[in-house]
């Protein structure tokens, strides 16, 4: 309620997580009495709308349908070729990424099939790369080097079966991997 200043993404994320979690657990402690889902939903929608409204008026731009509105900012739609590559939309993430990614991997593997005995290796490296940003957060290259190695060792068994030991380091390492098991599986599939 009072978290108006919380970045919209975080807020949205937190709000959307409430329901599936309740639905999944059979035993819930009712600390604050019964939850009025209807009300909660309404309030959340209202909050999201407030955030969108604020963003919209700040930029006088309707982000939902990509349309400029009158205001301080004079908007113009320019061809992507008229601006540096960097500004081009990365807009295709939502379009069947799984199949598309698999295709991509195939292309990539084929590309280096001649030279590399294990073309499959291409992908895991990319995956290591993806995560290395946070891995590298821990200082010197030396320590990153060691870290990475131990991490990739842990990662391979995790993708096939869950071991009890996975939970402890996983939880310690990042909230992402421990709290959203749902996310891990598709991600794994995507990257490979």
């Amino acid at each position, binding site marked *: 309620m009072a978290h108006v200043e919380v970045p919209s*993404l975080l807020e949205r994320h937190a709000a959307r997580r409430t329901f599936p979690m309740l639905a999944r657990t059979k035993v819930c402690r009712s600390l604050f009495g019964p939850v009025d889902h209807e009300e909660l939903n309404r309030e959340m929608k209202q909050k999201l709308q407030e955030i969108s409204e604020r963003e919209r008026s700040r930029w006088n731009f*309707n*982000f939902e349908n990509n349309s400029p509105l009158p205001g301080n900012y004079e908007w113009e739609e320019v061809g992507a070729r008229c601006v540096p590559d*960097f500004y081009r939309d990365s807009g*295709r993430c*939502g379009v069947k990424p799984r199949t598309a990614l698999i295709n991509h991997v195939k292309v990539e593997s084929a590309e280096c099939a001649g030279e590399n005995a294990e073309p499959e290796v291409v992908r895991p490296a990319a995956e290591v790369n993806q995560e290395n940003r946070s891995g590298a957060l821990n*200082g010197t290259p030396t320590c990153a080097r060691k870290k990475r190695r131990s991490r990739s060792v842990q990662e391979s068994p995790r993708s096939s079966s869950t071991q009890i030991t996975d939970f402890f380091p996983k939880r310690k390492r990042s909230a992402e991997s421990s709290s959203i098991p*749902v996310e891990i599986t598709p*991600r794994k599939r995507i990257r490979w």
Partner: protein
Amino acid sequence: MAMTQEGGVQYEPVAEIGGGAYGTVYKARDTQSGQFVALKSVRVQTDQEGLPLSTVREVALLKRLEQFDHPNIVKLMDVCATLRTDQETKVTLVFEHVDQDLKTYLEKAPAPGLPVSRIKDLMQQLLCGLSFLHSNRVLHRDLKPENILVTSRGQVKLADFGLARIYSCHMALTPVVVTLWYRSPEVLLQSTYATPVDIWSTGCIFAEMFRRKPLFCGESEVDQLTKIFSVIGLPSEEEWPTDVTLSRRNFSPQSPQPITDYVPELREDGADLLLKMLTFDPLRRISALKAQEHRFFSEHTGNS
């Protein structure tokens, strides 16, 4: 969502129309400050848990970096998320708009190329931005002339870092093959890596500032490595990383060639800096901070 009712019913959603190869970009001028901004949208797949936490975390990181207001980092003015469907959220990033990138800047440079003084200035700014990122424990990982912006006043601004998690699906989908030309040997060998990867890229870009064409133009990972070794020499067995599948034996023995064969415009101090950046062993490669202190930058333009 409810919002659509008021604002833009008369508009077609542009993303759907412009979903092709080129598309369009929204750009605006703030009539009060005269400042330009541009939008970049990323569509992120969501499940019942909402946006992937990695995306949320990445955005939080970008926002935190933004607070430093570093002169050599492109300004991220806002991040707006809109739910498109239950499976998809559109994240729109509002960036300051800069007219050109280093690629265009170098292409436009008149015939003899950039004066050394200009290269020094560009490099100093680039390294300054990079030191900032590295000291904040951020890797760029994909540094190349296309994502180094150069303002009309010659100010360098690094762009496109820290977005890897958000874009990851996009990058894999791009029909254009991601360039290998600025990739460090440890990345090409799929070894572990850290901040030195950006220094390697910076070295390649440094050479390109003189040459006005890329230094190593490989067509595959192995080809890229071969091209690199033909200049810096094949590293020794001791230097070869142990955690890689690609054996050193796949490459023919080569001794290092004089770097000035490839970048004849380089004087001694510049060549020394370049070689320190293009060092095979990432642990021995110069850091951004140390590179900023290199004598190449301290000497007068006249004698270099």
